[in-house]
């Protein structure tokens, strides 16, 4: 699906909210369980957290904070309340930084592209590359390996993230792509680009198209 119509934009917004609502429940579950375990361990006395439970609580709160920050950032970008950096940024450095950010959880398989400079917000480009890799793996074959390709066009560059093998069972992009997909998509739109996702059963192909030269107003 390629965005463009207001119906598609609404579809993406709805699915992004669904993804967020789903993901926020994970740290909430941990927080509830930590507090209940601490209550049980503390008996009738004051609530005491041991080091292990304290560490779990901190991690869960950090995860919740990260999700809230991501949602606010995506929302502000969509409403034009946040301006992204205009670079120049180097794509090859961004791909390497995304690999590092993923820390081996997901392999971005494919050659690092030759240095290409563009009017991009470097930190958000890195997060978008990592986010699309996570999403492609999640809705693709889940192997932890995402095939990456960089295709240079006339005034654009396409970043292609693919997992699994295409088949006939076409599926729309939905909340199960994870909030990382929707956040990354918003980054690309704010940089004047576009995102397309072709999806079938255990297969995903996400294509992010970025301008290589500065143009007029960014699409947000």
């Amino acid at each position, binding site marked *: 699906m390629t965005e463009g119509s207001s119906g598609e934009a609404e579809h993406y917004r709805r699915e992004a909210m669904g993804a967020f609502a789903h993901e926020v429940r994970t740290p909430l579950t941990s927080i509830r369980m930590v507090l209940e*375990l601490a209550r049980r361990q503390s008996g009738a006395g004051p609530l005491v957290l041991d080091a292990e439970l304290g560490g779990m609580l901190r991690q869960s709160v950090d995860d919740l904070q990260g999700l809230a920050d991501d949602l606010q950032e995506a929302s502000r970008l969509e409403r034009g309340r946040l301006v992204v950096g205009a670079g120049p940024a180097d794509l090859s450095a961004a791909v390497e930084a995304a690999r590092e950010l993923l820390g081996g959880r997901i392999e971005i398989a494919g050659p690092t592209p030759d240095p290409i400079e563009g009017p991009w917000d470097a930190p958000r480009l890195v997060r978008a590359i990592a986010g699309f890799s996570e999403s492609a793996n999640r809705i693709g074959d889940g192997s*932890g390996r995402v095939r990456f390709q960089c295709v240079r066009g006339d005034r654009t560059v396409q970043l292609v993230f693919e997992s699994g093998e295409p088949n006939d069972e076409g599926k729309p992009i939905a909340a199960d792509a994870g909030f990382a997909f929707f956040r990354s998509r918003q980054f690309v739109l704010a940089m004047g680009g576009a995102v397309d996702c072709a999806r079938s059963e255990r297969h995903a192909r996400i294509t992010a198209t970025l301008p290589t030269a500065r143009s007029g107003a960014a699409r947000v």
Partner: protein
Amino acid sequence: MRILLAEDERTISRLISQVLVSLGHNVTGVEAAADAIGLLRTETYDLILLDLNLADGDGMRVVEELRGLPAAATPVVLMTGEHVFSEDDQRVSMVAGVLAKPFEIDELEQMVARFSA
């Protein structure tokens, strides 16, 4: 009981394990659907606690693969954060129970107790 816990969020996995072990259960934890399926081919469990979204995709894949294994009768409890997981969802009919995140420890204990008898 021997319980297979398939959950890719490590904090939740550790917390659930802690609760279940304190109740005297034997818990084996995995993070990926492929690992769960691999264990179910060779090991026997009394209960499977299965997260719907695992590191390598949809947890329902485990339910579908389980049907073709000798362990097909093992009850599966699905753990999910899907707020629209309605009773008439086909997936509900494929499992023995559903724990909707965020759930309380009491709910977890009650659910597991259903299969302890």
